[in-house]
């Protein structure tokens, strides 16, 4: 559904939204897996938004840092997303939409915190992190 380079950008993006620390980041928790599953099903009408959004994000990264988005450090990626949120001039020029970023953020949270049956939250790691334990 997404090309290899789009996948790589998606991984960089989701790991910016939920970065790794003592606990896994989005990628290690299966969030991309979750998103691909969703885009193949209920959210298939958002596939184009992902193509367009990832391309625009890459343009923005190259414009600001001369590097593709997935070539940036976490701090750089974070500042790029802040530009999108604040609708900076460069962000607007790149054609990236804040509503798309909002959508990806929601998908990330759902992939990270919902039940593993949805394809993310591997080994229910996020539940262990927040302290939600299923006893029966």
């Amino acid at each position: 559904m997404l090309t290899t380079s789009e996948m790589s950008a998606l991984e960089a993006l989701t790991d910016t939204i939920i970065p790794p620390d003592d606990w896994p980041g989005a990628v290690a928790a299966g969030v991309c897996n979750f998103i691909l599953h969703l885009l193949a099903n209920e959210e298939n009408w958002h596939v184009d938004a992902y193509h367009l959004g990832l391309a625009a994000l890459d343009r923005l990264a190259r414009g600001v840092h001369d590097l593709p988005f997935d070539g940036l450090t976490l701090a750089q990626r974070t500042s790029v997303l802040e530009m999108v949120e604040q609708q900076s001039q460069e962000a607007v020029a790149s054609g990236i939409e804040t509503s798309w970023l909002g959508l990806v953020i929601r998908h990330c949270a759902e992939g990270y915190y919902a039940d593993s049956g949805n394809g993310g939250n591997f080994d229910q790691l996020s539940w262990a992190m927040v302290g939600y334990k299923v006893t029966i």
Partner: protein
Amino acid sequence: MSGYDAIVIGSGAGGGIAACVLAESGFSVLLVERGEQLSYHDVGRDHLRNQRLSAYGHNAGPGLGNPRTARNAQGELVALSPWQGGYHANAACVGSGTVVYGAQAWRFLPQDFKMASIYGVPPGSSLADWPIEYNDLEPYYTRAEWELGVCGDDRANAHSAYRSKAYPMPPMRSTLQHGVLKAGADRLGWNTSPVPLLINSQEYGGRPACAACQHCVGFACPVDAKNGTANTVIPRAIQTGRCELRSSTMAKRLVCDDDGQVIGVELASELYGEISTRVVYARKVILSCGAIESARLLLNSTSSQHPSGIGNRYDMVGRNLQGHYYPGAMGLMPHDVYDGIGPGVVISTSRFNHGNKGIIGGGMIANEFIMTPITYWHRALPPEVPRWGQANKDWMRDNYRRTIHITGPVQEIPSPSARVTVNREVRDKYGIPVAHLSGATHEETVRTSAFMWERCVEWLQASNAQHIWGEAPRGAWLSGGQHQAGTCRMGDNPESSVTDRWGRVHHQSNLYILDSSIHVTNGGFNPVLTIMALAYRGAEKVASELNGH
């Protein structure tokens, strides 16, 4: 004409009870349900598709092919799927909402039946007294509590009314939040009580005690300790050998004789995409489809005798749709207040249901059920916390277990323009015109909600919350949803109500409505125990009529 003694349409809270009372009184009953019979595994534990967080679907129906219409914020007419906002879904399966509900089992207060007398009628509202009083319903509240099984402490609530019998089970076990909030309420001088629940706190009715799981509201019970109609009165009805349950079957319209009296129902069912219909007859027909669908069925039952639908001579069917505004606030506590003991809702106060200076009515407030982590992320984050990045992850990790949520249902002041009509341009999968929803609640509902929101904040402050967030509801919108009620209100005057004080539709001798539709007002409490009590009372009346009295 051969047929059943009674047809009950809808197998939720009201319908399940009506079927049981009639079958156990010796009558033949056809119980019709458009949804399926669901097992615990059918309902599942999908955190994104359940009756609490329906991001991409839900788990207890209705499914696709059952749209409703409404106007969106831009004024455009839109068809809504059952899990979209504005659809106002409850559930559609054998047992309906009672399979997945939180099971709070509240009685309304005596004042809730006399709202107009106590407060006057605000201009523009349709506030009215019920034609019956609390004392008329009291024996049936007791019956529902004992026959389905409710746990609670009848002596703890200083604001409750007379009851003829104690709860059959002691309250649920205490939790960390209970201790913290009790101390806060004590500082304020507020009386609190454990929340009564239609859940087994100990073995009851041949089923085990609650296992304190973390998936109660919005899901089915893993040990069958939650008492809905699907695991109590409906199996009892079937056990008599006189009740036939037909699920996945839709009542399309009511059928009348030459005098315009209801004598049967046209049913539709789907097999491999093919729709078939047939008419079944009965001496009595009972509508228990929930407030939106019961109104829709009446409005869709047009004929030469009933050009605008049955019971709708005075344009009353579908009006006064109401539910509950649910103001709430979240507080960050100094310590962990999560012990994982479900259902989680344990402590409440009924101090503010009435007697609030300058306010009409009020509501009960309680702490919230355990939230799944993703529901917390969607609904409980403070506004200033970023939705992404390290700060968001830190908040979830550090504060999921430190948050208390206080919330509760506000007694709504009904508006006649908040209503269900039918949209003949849009059809469901059976070809039946769908419900169209329009209008909004009365402004007084918003004022009462703002007042109740302040009480939520006050309780959190007194309980030592370090930080409090969540906003009071602003603006008047249409209410309904899981607590939908009021669309066929009961009353003594046929020009301003749809049914009489028993639930019998005016000018109809065989047609009853026994569900949330007949509520005149919806109390400041979760409604299901009142729906159940009314169903016991109305079904007894139907049985006595069938006996020739």
